[in-house]
């Protein structure tokens, strides 16, 4: 019941109060009595709503994960530097095709190194876990769709994609899944092939 104002019952957390309570009024020597227990702390409340939004999400990545991400950015930047050097790098006086990509790639490398330095404090990356397989399955259905559409047209892969998403990724019932995926393909066929005559590869 108290959840919306949850961050505000200050008496419940004596240890942390001075630091958190002092943030809104930055003025030195502000008496602590100003933040009465009833005061509504905007910053706190926003954090809480955001945290609630993230409730259903996987946990944050650890230090190792953050370092891997940072390293990946650095590697990407270095690869881009090497790639840019393949073009004429030019100079400030006569910028050539390689000048700009080289500048941007160098910035990426520097910022990537910045990520390495701050890795310990990073909290916004999520851990890959069991739920990540769902995403992989979802991506796989799309890859299959792209791969087979030039050969057998869009109908079968589209129905398959919809079915997998409904039944296995969305845990809908068998009947709902089958009916919806077939209905979807029929609708797409009528709209794109029938009404708009888009030359999309199709079987029928």
């Amino acid at each position, binding site marked *: 019941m108290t959840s919306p104002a949850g961050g505000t019952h200050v008496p419940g957390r004596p240890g942390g109060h001075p630091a958190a309570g002092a943030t809104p009024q930055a003025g030195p020597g502000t008496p602590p009595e100003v933040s009465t227990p009833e005061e509504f702390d905007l910053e706190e409340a926003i954090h809480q709503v955001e945290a609630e939004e993230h409730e259903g999400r996987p946990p944050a990545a650890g230090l190792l994960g953050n370092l891997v991400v940072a390293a990946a950015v650095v590697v990407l930047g270095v690869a881009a530097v090497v790639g840019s050097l393949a073009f004429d790098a030019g100079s400030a006086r006569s*910028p050539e095709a390689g000048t700009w990509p080289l500048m941007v790639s160098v910035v990426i490398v520097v*910022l990537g190194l910045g990520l390495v330095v701050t890795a310990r404090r990073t909290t916004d990356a999520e851990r890959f876990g069991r739920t990540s397989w769902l995403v992989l399955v979802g*991506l796989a259905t799309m890859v299959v769709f792209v791969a087979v559409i030039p050969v057998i047209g869009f109908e079968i892969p589209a129905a398959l994609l919809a079915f997998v998403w409904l039944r296995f990724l969305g845990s809908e019932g068998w009947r709902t899944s089958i009916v919806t995926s077939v209905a979807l393909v029929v609708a797409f066929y009528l709209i794109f092939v029938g009404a708009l005559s888009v030359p999309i590869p199709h079987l029928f």
Partner: protein
Amino acid sequence: MDLAPVLDGFGVVLQPTNLLYCLIGVVVGMLVGVLPGLGPAATIAILLPITIGIEPVTAVIMLAGIFYGAQYGGTITSVLLRLPGEASSVVTVFDGFALARQGRAGTALGIAAVGSFLGGTVSIVALSFVAPLVAGFALDFGPPEYTALALLGILLVATVSSGDRLKAVIAACLGLLLATVGRDGFTGAERFTFDNLSLADGLDFVPIAMGLFGLGEILYNLEERHRAVHAPATVANVWPSRKDLRQSSGAIGRGSVLGFFLGILPGGGATLASLAAYAMEKRRSKTPERFGRGAVEGVAAPESANNAAATSSFIPLLTLGIPANATMAVIYGALLIQGVSPGPQLVDQEPELFWGVVNSMYIGNILLLIMSIPLVGLFVKILRVRATILAPITVLITLIGVYTVNYDVFDIGLVVAFGALGYLMKKLGFDPGPLVLAFVLGSLLEDSLRRSLLLFDGDPTGFLTRPISGTLLVLFLVVVLLPLIRAALPRRRADARRDTKELV
């Protein structure tokens, strides 16, 4: 000010096709705002293929409608479910939901609708006067000014957005790099094409936006455990009472003005405006203790501000050709596809497009006000549509839609690849917005930089000798250096804060 083009603009809006697309836009926007999951940027990206066959004015009228319509819709879930449908409605949650628990959900929604309408309208009127002035001022901008402006715009969007600033800037750099793929406009050299014919002309905007915003978001949502949504069955009495209106009139006025100004700033936009308006109202109030427990002003101020900001964020796009946020970047992309390049010449060269779009917002706002008050019940029912059924439909619309742009299977592959990238970026804390924004500005930025360097004979200090580019670059440096300086100072405050969080 010459009034004839303004009136012609109304003529454009009142054409039946444009009215219809305006209606479609605001309805779709409202739905998007209500349904959690896809935001306005994602929806606009997914709908890009259907804008290709239609007139540029009509297309932008619809896309704009989606954008400001979403600001209305986001309120509904904030008030009824304590789930902000859009980031710009987060603060509405506090007082909106408190009012709903007191059985006054209708009041909150009604005030929000009225506030949104007034905020939007104030902002359109101001836009109509300010935009031509800004455009006139910007007509003399040369390559150095554009270089500085684009750099500052990208940086502001990256640093003001929520989340890790460093990561957002990295995302922006990645966008700049992606924009270089293809043939170099100056020398004809092929860059990063890997001898692939489909890449020779560069990457298309549509698959990138659809993949990063659309598929990326859908894939990201797959990992979320679904929460049961308990929508209230009915919402009674949506008309706000005279007393509520009187109480919130000041908040609406101040919120609208604040929102207008914050919306113009790159990276400012609706979210920042709603936060600032709420904070200001609370500070001004004689009874600040009511905030967070169902103060009507706490709903009125942020809702007026976010709509005003959504409208005024069109100013930089339409007058300077610099999008102020991710959604504007997608609309910028839509204009480029239509062969219209937004910039200071737009007001003079395409008055029909400019005034048509601006004036369509009056109509759109009226449509939204008409719809949102009596039809709240209907939109509440839509909340019951399950995300698990919407997801595959959206995926198929994306995959088949992107094909219809060039009739090329390569584009479907591209959209899937960017979908995967978008998922990874969101998962790892990189906001895809700055990437898309930097991508659309990439060639402009490189072009103006190279022209400027030729102009200055290779001397980068030349930028500082021109007043406007100099000022903008100094601002750029301030924005870059300020966080570095702040990071060098002791970090105790933030750490202490985190500790208390874990304790609670």
